[in-house]
């Protein structure tokens, strides 16, 4: 990565306005042509230094429902429980974490009622209590990493 790559990665995390020529200001600011800006963004995407570039959608605002759940699972049952939890297609991510609450997973569904159904199902299958921690307020999503 050179200086221009770094400037672009840093600036592009803030977001671009919706306007006719959204890359012009970025080109002015970095002192290169718009073509060069676009070529570099493509290169950063190709090299997977950027995962994606575009509108960041909020699934919950689209009518979907998401929650974070935690469970306290005994060591000898851990892998078997993980398998039961992961078997639900609504379970998007699942992490083992170092804490008495050692299994943390995200449940995502089209409708809020589905979340409750999945959580009840997991509790019945695993005989573990699920601590449901839906977000009550969102403060920020995304990093503003300086590179």
């Amino acid at each position, binding site marked *: 990565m050179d200086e221009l790559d770094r400037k672009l990665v840093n600036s592009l995390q803030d977001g671009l306005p*919706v306007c006719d020529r959204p890359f012009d200001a970025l080109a002015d600011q970095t002192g290169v042509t718009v073509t060069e800006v676009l070529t570099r963004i493509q290169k950063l995407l190709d090299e997977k230094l950027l995962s*994606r570039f575009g509108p960041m959608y909020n699934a919950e605002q689209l009518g979907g429902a998401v929650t974070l759940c935690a469970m306290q699972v005994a060591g000898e049952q851990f892998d078997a429980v993980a398998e039961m939890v992961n078997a639900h297609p609504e*379970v998007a991510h*699942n992490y*083992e974490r*170092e804490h008495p609450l050692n*299994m943390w997973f995200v449940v995502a569904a089209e409708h809020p009622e589905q979340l409750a159904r999945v959580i009840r199902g997991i509790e019945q299958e695993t005989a573990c209590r699920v601590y449901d921690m839906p977000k009550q307020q969102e403060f920020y999503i995304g990093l503003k990493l300086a590179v």
Partner: protein
Amino acid sequence: MQQQDISMEQQDNRPIDEVDRRIILATQAGLPLAEQPYDVLARQLDLAVEELMERLRAMQQSGVIRRIAAVPNHYALGYRANGMSVWNVPDEIVGELGARVGALEFVSHCYQRPRHLPLWPYNLFAMVHGKTQDAVEQGVEQIALLLGEYCRGHEVLYSKRILKKTGLRITG
């Protein structure tokens, strides 16, 4: 050119319609890289470019679109350590404190979530990223300083293992 994160503003809850849904499906993988990307997109969708831009702005206003931006691959950029920091702060002030914690550049996700007493007294979650575990710990220290006397306790949960990871995608 910087845009304020709309998720913190008052959101109207205008539902999306079929045209919005087509726009979402067409841009889920990303925005066309062109000098006039909305022209390209409008042609693909057979929409007037003014209508397309108006709809995108409305979706930003309502919170359906957080922002139009690049998502860095933090792992590839060298940020390989992260920890889920959780904080017990007074409910009356969690909104103000969460906004300040979320604004820290090394925090990716910041939410208020419910406590489950007595096991789980924490109501503020902040995912902290760093190039090293030391950097993550420094980040946590910085949050502790920022919260000051409002912090009644905190923990950092490091991930040991990814058990499942699939993307969230919107289906047509």
